[in-house]
């Protein structure tokens, strides 16, 4: 093997996989992959950035705010008004009807809405306890122990074709996956290919599902959601360009009754039922969507939830995170709306403060660093690296 070969980076890998997934003929797909990943083509690969990406990059370069302004005294000297001190939309209470535990057995629980939770693979983790931060008053935080929301994931695990002839393999893969998730305390619930709901980490504990992440509801901001939000994973893979195939009807039905049960039991707001791609961030690059599972095509409506993709991303308008052109290219529809809304909101705030968007973004980023510094040392920001 050529020692010059360098594996593609994360974004390039996503791009290659995305392109490859669109080539139906296996020979043509292999030909494409061999050509684009071969040792001799490393430099050529670098040049093969699609025209669309170049255009997006150019757009971002010309019009997006620069990220270099960072005056440490900015916050105090200008006596800036804090963002969102007014006009914060507090979601209307949206509790759903009471759903109760009907029966609890050794290996399962049954709920009044028909939900059955398999509990054989249940495990414990550290107990839930987390800080939330007041957007309107920096430095003000509260401790909570009740779950505040749900983050939906895909396991991105290996999948067998969903066919009767593959039954044994489907079951074996599910079993392996559950053992793996249990070992890593990855999620609170897994919905397998047959629509069965399995408990992984118990509801009173945190799970290592989201890692570095941000969400906000009303005046409160949640940072690193492993403790504050439930992690519900679909045994599935994100397939760019084929959003309809990510979950089957059995899984969607299971997700709905599980969501209803959790919302009923813990009073979770519908606006706090979101996808991993919506909350994931990378502090190293200050970009959103470090994980891209359910970046598009999540069936909010079928789960009885509002179209939460339409919410502006709090990571952007609260903490100034940005995004890269490859992400934009890979998520053609769903999240784009929320990016635009978040950017509009940020622009409005900057205008209201009388400063440039770049300065405003620098201020928000400083705020993120201060918030993270205020997190307890025990903050759990482990994440699933497989997604």
């Amino acid at each position, binding site marked *: *093997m050529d020692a010059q*070969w360098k*594996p*593609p980076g*994360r974004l390039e*890998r996503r791009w*290659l*996989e995305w392109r*490859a*997934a669109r080539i139906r003929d*296996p*020979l043509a*797909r*292999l*030909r494409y*992959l*061999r050509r684009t*990943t*071969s*040792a001799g083509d490393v430099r050529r690969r670098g040049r093969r950035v699609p025209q669309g990406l170049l255009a997006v990059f150019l757009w971002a370069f010309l019009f997006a705010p620069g990220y270099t302004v960072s005056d440490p005294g900015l916050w105090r000297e200008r006596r800036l008004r804090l963002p969102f001190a007014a006009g914060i939309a507090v979601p209307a209470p949206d509790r759903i009807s009471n759903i109760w535990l009907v029966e609890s057995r050794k290996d399962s629980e049954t709920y009044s809405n028909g939900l059955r939770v398999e509990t054989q693979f249940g495990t414990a983790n550290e107990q839930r306890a987390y800080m939330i931060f007041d957007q309107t008053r920096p430095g003000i935080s509260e401790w909570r122990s009740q779950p505040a929301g749900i983050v939906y994931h895909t396991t*991105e*695990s*290996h*999948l*067998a*074709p969903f066919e009767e002839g593959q039954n044994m*393999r489907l079951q*074996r*893969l599910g079993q*392996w*996956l559950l053992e*793996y998730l249990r070992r890593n305390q990855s999620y609170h619930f897994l919905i397998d290919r047959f629509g069965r709901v399995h408990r992984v980490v118990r509801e009173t504990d945190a799970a290592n599902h989201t890692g570095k992440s941000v969400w906000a509801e009303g005046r409160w901001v949640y940072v690193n959601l492993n403790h504050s939000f439930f992690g519900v994973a679909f045994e599935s893979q994100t397939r760019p360009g084929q959003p309809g195939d990510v979950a089957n009807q059995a899984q969607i039905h299971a997700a709905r009754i599980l969501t209803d049960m959790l919302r009923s039991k813990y009073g979770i707001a519908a606006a706090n039922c979101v996808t991993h791609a919506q909350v994931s961030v990378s502090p190293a690059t200050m970009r959103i969507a470090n994980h891209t599972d359910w970046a598009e095509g999540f069936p909010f409506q079928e789960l009885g939830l509002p179209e939460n993709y339409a919410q502006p991303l709090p990571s952007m308008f609260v903490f100034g995170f940005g995004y890269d052109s490859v992400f934009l290219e890979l998520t053609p529809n769903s999240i784009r709306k929320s990016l635009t809304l978040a950017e509009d909101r940020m622009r409005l705030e900057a205008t209201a403060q009388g400063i440039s968007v770049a300065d405003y973004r620098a201020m928000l980023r400083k705020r993120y660093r201060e918030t993270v510094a205020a997190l307890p040392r025990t903050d759990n920001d482990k994440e699933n*690296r*497989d*997604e």
Partner: protein
Amino acid sequence: MSKNQSHPQQAIGLDVGTSRVVMARRSGEQYAFSSQLNAFVSVPFTRMTENALKRENIPYTAHGTELIVLGNESTRFADLLSVETRRPMTAGTLNPGEKESLSVIRSLIETLNPNAAQEKPQVCFSVPSAPLGADENLTYHEATLRQVLGEMGYQPRSINEGLAVIYSELEDTNYTGIGISCGGGLCNVSLAYLSMPVLSFSIPKAGDFIDTSAAAVTGELATRIRLYKEESFHFNGHFSDKLQQVLAVYYDDMIQALAAAMKEAIGSSRRLPKIGRPVPVVLSGGTTLPQGFRERFEKTLSETEMPLTISEIRIAADPLHTTAKGALVAALTEM
């Protein structure tokens, strides 16, 4: 392709294994395979024997005072004559102690495709990886096969055996995962990422190791052990006879060596890309055929702390033909 050529160019996949030579071709949308045992026996030349071989359509060549019976039928002759079959290859490469090795391999390939000189097909042939930790040079083996195939009219290219397994079986993961071919001389392992081989190695414990070790313990001929192993051995249930027990012991030894080598090779690789998700393992080759092999391997691997998370372990759809099919897939992508 030149317009003057009388035959459309064909692609062929060729698995030149220690135990078998398997040829794969495309037949419409399907793959077609033909194979010969990579073995021979020599019997004294008599007119009667030669006529019998001709009548039965058994491949052979006459060498002075000897008749060399090639391929699949050699085992039956060896059993009748109570002799061991002779092997053109050992431990995955040409057998340096067998002077007939090249001519036998050439004859075997000719029996599989007599028209190479006219068709001039593209062929992708399998080559093993160097054994883990050994500084073995496989250039001679590869270059010699390339030369033989070129002389026969083929346009040869080579492919690593483990990678061929990946090309054959891991289309659904964009050719990312681990392919293992447990053959006669070697277990070849390859880890590929988006079709690119990241890591390849072999271990010298495979089917022949099991046969010869069991033969040494039981006093049987290795050829007979192999026949018994292929027809009757399984991992499931209780082992009633001694030979079953002996075979199980050496199978376990091989599986443990394989799992340990995977752990060592993957753990010590500095060039492992961040794959970011569990990867599948596909097992192929004649040594994986006994019932219960997959489960035994899975159990051993789960007890080994692998530096990589495995999503599943499965046996290839057609374990005896997997490498040849993967080689054919590689040849087709070159056309």
